[in-house]
């Protein structure tokens, strides 16, 4: 399906830091409404790839086409407005804010500012707050974090913080969601919950998802297509079944005595 309708097209990305090559001519397409997984050993450049897509890193060469724009040339803070949201490998929440405020902060791009009215919390400003509060409450309800809406997130346990972070990404109402190891460090039960949320987001909201994950079972179960990176280069791409039996992938990642 990628051929007909690519939502995101990554072309020949080259990224290096101080002479060390992190990404080496990586290209792939992600179709609309797809769950696309990026896998590979530690240090293969997976997170760097996500950082390029969210315009946080600027690759030296290559283009990333999305919604008629080249993300490589888009200012970082405008990417969210184009409908791209993400979570981070090492949870990057606003630790001093509550769950509710974290999600509201992500509504930033949707909230209209009303100058003086905001300063006095009056009339239109108040209505605007309530309108977005409704959206955010829906999301909290969906992720089952409504009971911690007024808890400061810095103090929450790891699993919940991961969920709040997903909620914050959803509050942007993205078309494309980038998830960087959303299930890392979770036990089976927490992973199941998270998998359920990811699948629901995908099915009900029609969000396209790019996912980095180490748990091969999980990747194979929920993703439609998989790309495998090794030392910054793409070594395979295809359906989970194809990738699993690809000899190059077994050698570089899944591991096998040669």
């Amino acid at each position, binding site marked *: 399906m990628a051929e007909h309708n690519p939502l995101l097209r990554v072309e020949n990305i080259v990224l290096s830091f101080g002479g060390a090559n992190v990404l080496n001519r990586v290209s792939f397409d992600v179709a609309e409404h797809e769950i696309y997984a990026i896998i590979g050993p530690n240090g293969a450049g997976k997170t760097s790839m996500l950082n390029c897509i*969210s*315009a*946080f890193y600027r690759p030296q060469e290559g283009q990333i086409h999305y919604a008629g724009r080249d993300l490589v040339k888009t*200012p*970082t*803070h*405008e*990417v*969210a*407005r184009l409908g791209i*949201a*993400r979570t*981070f490998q090492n949870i*990057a*929440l*606003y*630790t*001093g*804010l509550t769950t509710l*405020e974290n999600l*509201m*902060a*992500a*509504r*930033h*791009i949707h*909230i209209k*500012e009303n100058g003086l009215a*905001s*300063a*006095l*919390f009056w009339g239109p*400003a*108040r209505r605007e*707050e*309530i309108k977005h*509060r*409704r959206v955010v*409450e829906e999301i909290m309800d969906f992720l089952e974090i409504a009971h911690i809406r*007024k808890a400061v997130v810095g103090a929450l346990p790891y699993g919940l913080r991961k969920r709040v972070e997903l909620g*914050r*990404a959803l509050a*942007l109402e993205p078309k494309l969601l980038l998830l960087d190891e959303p299930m890392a460090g979770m036990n089976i039960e927490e992973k199941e919950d998270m998998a359920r949320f990811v699948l629901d987001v995908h099915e009900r909201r029609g969000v396209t998802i790019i996912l980095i994950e180490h748990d091969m079972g999980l990747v194979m179960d929920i993703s439609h297509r998989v790309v495998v990176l090794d030392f910054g280069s793409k070594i395979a791409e295809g359906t989970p079944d194809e990738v699993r039996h690809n000899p190059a992938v077994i050698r570089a990642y899944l591991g096998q005595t040669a």
Partner: protein
Amino acid sequence: MAMLRPAGDFDRNYAQDMALLRQPWQRWAMLLIITAAALIPLSGNAYLVTTVNRIMYTIVAVQGLNVLTGMTGQISLGQAAFMLVGGYIVALTAQYWGLPIFVTLPLAALGTGVVGLIFGLPSLRVKGFYLAMATLAAQFIIPWLSRHIFPEYLGGSSGRIPVPSPVIAGITFNQVAQVFYISLVVLVITTVVLINVRRTKLGRSFIAVRDNDLAAEVLGVNPFGVKLRAFFVAAMLAGVAGGLKAISQRSVGTELAYGLNESILLLGMLVIGGLGHNLGPFLGVVTIIFLEDLANVTGATMAAIFPQHATSLLTSFRPLFFGLVLMLFLIFEPRGLAHRWELLKASWRMRPFSR
């Protein structure tokens, strides 16, 4: 914890959940506090009136710092210099253009805000310590300029110019007891506005930038724009506070405590009160000004006992006390008095189950 409320007190919609003063007694208490403050000048106690007036305009300056340092996480060592700018604007616009106070104070806010923006520009590329250095530069450059440019207007090396007393409705506000009311009105306005900023879009983006500027940027917040706004707001409030200080002292200039030590003092007040907390500026300023007076009294007493060291003793207790208190707070209660207050409130709600 902080969400526990008495039985029977529910929120039925989001508007109720957002309300600040939820119960009638809270509204009454607020009104009572403001009325009590308004009655102070009638007491006729000059020390009390002067001190509370000083506390009020200092709170406004610290509120500005709270936006920049507390909420946005950008350290500023230049707040006192921005107060100086505000003081000069109020003095000059009143002196030469004869503008009334409800024009000069907003002009001071805007003008100082613009100066603040200029020194906020380095925040495009640097943060943390580096940015603190940029504001340190402001703290040296601004007072220097005031002493060396336009000496006929800014007072040159004499370090001060007079400030005309404002006239409102035909009454000249030349007594501290009168200026007191101007400070009170300003403080009420800034407090209301800041509480609302904190709970709406702008405030959330300030804190987002403080807690994780990189993530905020990826999630659609333009950190540079947000930091500039914080610099603007902080300098605006410094400008207003500086204007009030100038009016209260009836003169303005580098001679009158606008130096680096004053900036450090404002920062220390904020930390002791509680960084990023709406109550922080109130608690911090009151505590430090009280301590300062205590230090001055101690110094004066000691000076009376050891007259040969009088000058040293008079000047040394203030920094000694302040430095010690600041360090103790940072080591033992880095979240400041406001955090203590929250704990106290929580245990009051939990009574009789709390100890």
